[in-house]
């Protein structure tokens, strides 16, 4: 990364007051943990947790051609969205590899919001701005937009205590959103998240986010609310097998081998990367991202080589950690097509020590229906 000073979100003072340990992440000084990764993880699985994800990028496209511009840059079909609906998607380059994974929100036919990863903000901002030029209005609203994720089985119940408008948000269906007001702050609230639990993500004006955050923590005690840092964010997303850009997917991987074929709609009309993806789909995949469980004594980590039982290097671990809820050491990694069947045994090279692992079905964790 660059040598420029780390940026702080408008919630920085809140994190410090809550005893967070701050780390550098994608140019930001962000909380990695408050009370402990496992403690925060369990809070989100069993009660509720609040995350500051204000570092993420918000790109706004408006105008008659905004829908077309957005749809042309993403692999999923934006034309299927209705007002107030959002979708997960990849954006690929011409070679069919992944520039970023995004959530696209249709506010109206002529007003679109795209949320991108913090680490990709400048790249994606330039990418969308270039495509929008002469076609629609483009605005990078990241600096003006804070984002709080409130996640967990009790998240909606907690939110409802903030007033009648907040209570009405319980009616939001998964991957829908609406503009509303929370404790006097105008917000956009979406029923989305990155934890495998029920919950919402709250977009608020940058300097008003602390008002919302404090209101949540003011009411949160009865709902087991804890502040959650990047450490638990990673374990919470790994168990339900949600991809992490820069780990599991990047510009060297395509969505089909990453298990994201469900957001690639080759029949939706032309889009950036479609030609390459059609070719990739026509042949058997050389490698696939699989979930695995480490059965030996070891914890797989990002970047560890994967070996066949004879010891030959055949793949790469992209994510790995103990799964606090599943109670096993789990991971994701790319393996050759012939080694991706459930039950296939292989080795994880944990710093020179080969530890047994087995391909298992994913997600590792799925929440029970409410």
């Amino acid at each position: 990364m660059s040598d420029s000073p780390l940026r702080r979100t408008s919630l920085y003072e809140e994190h410090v007051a809550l005893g967070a340990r701050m780390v550098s992440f994608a140019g930001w000084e962000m909380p990695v943990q408050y009370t402990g990764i496992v403690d925060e993880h369990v809070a989100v699985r069993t009660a509720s947790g609040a995350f500051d994800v204000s570092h993420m990028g918000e790109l706004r496209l408006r105008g008659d051609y905004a829908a077309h511009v957005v749809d042309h840059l993403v692999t999923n079909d934006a034309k299927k969205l209705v007002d107030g609906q959002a979708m997960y998607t990849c954006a690929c380059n011409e070679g069919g590899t992944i520039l970023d994974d995004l959530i696209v929100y249709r506010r109206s036919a002529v007003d679109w919001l795209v949320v991108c990863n913090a680490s990709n903000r400048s790249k994606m901002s330039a990418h969308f701005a270039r495509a929008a030029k002469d076609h629609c209005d483009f605005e990078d609203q990241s600096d003006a937009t804070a984002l709080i994720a409130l996640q967990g089985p009790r998240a909606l119940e907690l939110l409802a205590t903030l007033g009648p408008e907040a209570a009405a948000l319980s009616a939001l269906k998964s991957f829908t959103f609406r503009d509303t007001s929370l404790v006097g702050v105008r917000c956009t609230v979406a029923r989305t998240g990155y934890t495998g639990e029920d919950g919402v993500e709250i977009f608020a004006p940058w300097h008003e986010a602390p008002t919302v955050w404090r209101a949540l923590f003011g009411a949160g005690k009865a709902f087991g609310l804890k502040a959650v840092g990047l450490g638990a964010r990673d374990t919470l997303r790994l168990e339900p097998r949600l991809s992490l850009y820069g780990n599991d997917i990047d510009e060297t991987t395509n969505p089909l081998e990453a298990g994201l074929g469900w957001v690639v709609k080759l029949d939706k009309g032309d889009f950036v990367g479609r030609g390459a993806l059609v070719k990739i789909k026509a042949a058997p995949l050389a490698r696939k991202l699989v979930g695995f469980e480490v059965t030996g004594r070891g914890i797989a980590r990002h970047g560890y080589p994967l070996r066949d039982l004879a010891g030959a290097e055949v793949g790469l671990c992209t994510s790995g950690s103990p799964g606090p809820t599943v109670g096993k050491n789990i991971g994701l990694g790319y393996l050759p097509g012939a080694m991706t069947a459930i039950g296939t045994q292989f080795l994880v090279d944990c710093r020179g020590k080969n530890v047994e692992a087995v391909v298992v079905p994913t997600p590792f964790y799925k929440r029970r229906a409410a």
Partner: protein
Amino acid sequence: MSGEVPADLLYTKDHEWVRPGADLAVGITAFAVEQLGDITLVNLDVKVGDEVTAGKAFGTIESVKTLSDLYAPVAGKVVRINAELATRPELVNEDCYGKAWMIAIQPSDPKATSTLMDPKAYTAHVQSS
């Protein structure tokens, strides 16, 4: 930073503690534990009778997020290892100066502990970390 620094132990800059006695029991300090967070795996790569070298790794410790090496504070022969840590890594979080001792070393040089920090020096080291 917080973290207890018992007065009867000696310390390394890598945050191991040493308990002087008939042999030298070794563990990691409360400061190290606080930095690591929830300990999920302790791997001792030595067995009784092995020789260890001062400053060289004798094992690894893993938390949810990271892996760290465990360094031998002094050179010598491993005379005891704490096998319980293999199945109960959480002992490191619960009792890092007691039940979570890791190995005990018979130093090859009886004066080896003179290179270690006393509690006062270690406290200053932690405060500057």
